C-alpha cells in the first residue's frame, strides 16, 4: 500500500511538472541546439532570454501592460465586489437570491458572445488599443469570482462582532469598515490573488480589443512572436517568454498555496 501511495504521489508530481520542466529546460538551450532532447541543456545559455528582451520584441512593455490591466482590474473589482459581497452575506433584502444566482450565471457567460457588441461599441467610441478596453470587459469574469469568494468568506464571520460594534455606536457601514473588513483581510487577499491570476491569464478579450503591439498584454504578445523568417517559429524565445510570464504566478502559488487552494475550493463548493 505504501509503495502504491508513493508511486501515486510521484506520478502526480511528474504529470504536473514534466511539461513545465521541458519548457524551462528548452528556454536555457542555445538556438543551435534547441532541438536536443537531453534532459538538461548543454551548454546552458541565456541566448533565448536575451532575445526576448530585444527591443523589437516589445516583451518588457507587454509585461508592463499585463501588470496594469491585471492590477487595475483586480483593484476595481475588489472595491466594487467587497461591498456587494458584504451586502449579500449580511443584509437581508428582497431579491437577494436572484442577485446571487445572477452573479453565478454571469460567470458562465461565454466571453466570445460579450466581445462582439463590445468590439463594436469600443470601435465607435475610440477605445480600441486602450487599457480600459481590456479592463472593463475583464470585470465580467473577475467580479463574479470576487463576489462569490468574498460572500462565502463574510458568511463565515460571526454576526456577533458587528452587533457588538453597532451596540458600541457604529453605523452599519462603520461596523463593516472598522470591524469586518480588517477581519476579512485574509479572504480579500486570497480573492485578490485569484482575480489577478485570472486577469493575467485572460486571452480572448486582449486579443480582440488590442492589435497595437505597444498595448498588447504578455499572453497575446508571446503568441505572436515571429522569428527572423516569417514561418520560422522562434521556440526558444517563446519558451523563455513563457517562463517569464508564468514566473510571477508560480511564485504566488509557492508562497500562498494553502490560501489559493482554500479560495479555489471555497468558490466552488460553499
Amino acid at each position, binding site marked *: 500500500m505504501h509503495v502504491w501511495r508513493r508511486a501515486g504521489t510521484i506520478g502526480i508530481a511528474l504529470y504536473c511538472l514534466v511539461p513545465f520542466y521541458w519548457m524551462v529546460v528548452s528556454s536555457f538551450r542555445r538556438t543551435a541546439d534547441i532541438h536536443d532532447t537531453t534532459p538538461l541543456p548543454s551548454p546552458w545559455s541565456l541566448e533565448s532570454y536575451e532575445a526576448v528582451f530585444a527591443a523589437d520584441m516589445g516583451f518588457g512593455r507587454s509585461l508592463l501592460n499585463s501588470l496594469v490591466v491585471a492590477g487595475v482590474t483586480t483593484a476595481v473589482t475588489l472595491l466594487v465586489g467587497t461591498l456587494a459581497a458584504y451586502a449579500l452575506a449580511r443584509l437581508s433584502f428582497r431579491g437577494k437570491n436572484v442577485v446571487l444566482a445572477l452573479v453565478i450565471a454571469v460567470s458562465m457567460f*461565454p466571453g466570445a458572445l460579450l*466581445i*462582439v457588441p463590445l468590439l463594436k461599441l469600443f470601435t465607435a467610441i475610440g477605445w480600441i488599443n486602450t487599457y480600459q478596453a481590456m479592463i472593463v470587459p475583464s470585470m465580467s469574469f473577475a467580479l463574479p469570482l470576487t463576489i462569490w469568494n468574498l460572500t462565502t468568506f463574510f458568511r463565515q464571520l460571526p454576526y456577533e462582532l458587528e452587533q457588538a460594534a453597532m451596540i458600541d455606536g457604529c453605523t452599519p457601514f462603520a461596523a463593516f469598515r472598522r470591524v469586518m473588513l480588517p477581519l476579512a483581510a485574509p479572504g480579500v487577499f486570497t480573492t485578490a490573488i485569484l482575480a489577478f491570476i485570472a486577469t493575467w491569464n485572460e486571452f480572448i478579450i486582449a486579443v480582440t480589443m488590442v492589435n497595437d503591439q505597444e498595448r498588447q498584454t504578455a499572453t497575446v504578445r508571446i503568441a505572436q512572436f515571429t522569428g527572423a523568417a516569417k514561418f520560422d517559429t522562434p521556440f526558444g524565445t517563446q519558451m523563455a517568454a513563457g517562463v517569464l510570464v508564468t514566473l510571477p504566478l508560480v511564485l504566488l502559488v509557492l508562497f500562498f498555496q494553502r490560501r489559493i487552494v482554500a479560495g479555489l475550493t471555497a468558490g466552488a463548493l460553499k
Partner: protein
Amino acid sequence: MLSPTLLVLALVVFYPLVAAMRESFYESGQRLDADGFVVEGEWFAGLANYAGVAQQRFINAALNTTLFTVVTVSLEVVLGMAMALVMRRAFRGRAFLRASILVPWAVPTAVAGLMWKWIFQADGVANALLGTQILWTADGPWAKLAVIVADTWKTAPFVGLLVLAGLQIIPAEVYEAARVDGATPWQTFRRVTLPLVKPALLVAVLFRLMDALRIFDLPYVLVGPRKQSVETLSGLIWDEATRVHYGPASAYGTALFVYIAVIAFVFVKLLGADLLSDVRERRLSGRREGNARVA
C-alpha cells in the same frame, strides 16, 4: 452597496448580451434604397444571420466544441478523482504535492498552448519519445488529440483539488464502519467514497462543462486560428467578429449562449437536487465552524 456591482454587470454583461441578441437579427453595411441610391446603415434581417448555423463551418465548430468538452471533462473527472484519492493519503511531501498540482492551473492557457506546441513539434520531444513522426499541430485529426492532451493536462489537477476538498469532509467513521463490515477497497470506493463525494464532483463537473464549452485560447495558440480541425464555436465567433461580420458573429454567439444555458439547465435539472442540498448544507456547517473558531 450592490448598486456599483449591478452597474458594472449591466455594462459589461447585460448590455453586451442584449446588444448581441438584437444585433443577431440585424444586418449592416451598404445597400440600395428604393430610389437606387446607396445608403449606409442597419436594417432588420430576420433570421438571415442564423442561416450560417446550418452551414458546414458552424456545424463543424459545434461538433469540435462538443467533442472537446465530452472527452476532456470525462478524462479530467477520472484523472482528478485518482489524484484526489492519492492526495488524501499523502502525508509526506504534501506541501510539495499541493504546489506542483497548482502549476498547471497557474500556467496561462496561452503559455500552455505554446508549451504543448513545442512538445508536439514534428521534431519535438513527443515524437522522439513515442518514436513517431506525427504532425500534431498541423490542421488534421491529430491536432484534436493535441488539444485534448493539453487541456486535460491543464485542468485535471484543478478537478483533483475540488474533489479533494469534497473527500476531506467525509468523516473517518464511515470508513471504519466499512472496514469492520469487511468491505474490500473497491467496495469501499463504490459504496462509500463515491456517493459521499458525488456532490463535490458534480460541482466540479458543472464548472468544467461551462468552461470547456467556451474553449478558445488553447486551440488558437496550439494549432492556430481558422483551423478546421480544431475550430471551436468561440473561435468561429471571434473570427467573424474581427472580420466585422457582427451580424453572423452575434447569431453564433447567441447560439453558443443558448447551447451553454441548455446544458447547464439540463445538468442542474437532472442532478440538481443533490447540488443544491449540498450547497445549503455546506453553508450551514461553514457558518457553524466559523462561529466555533472565533468563540
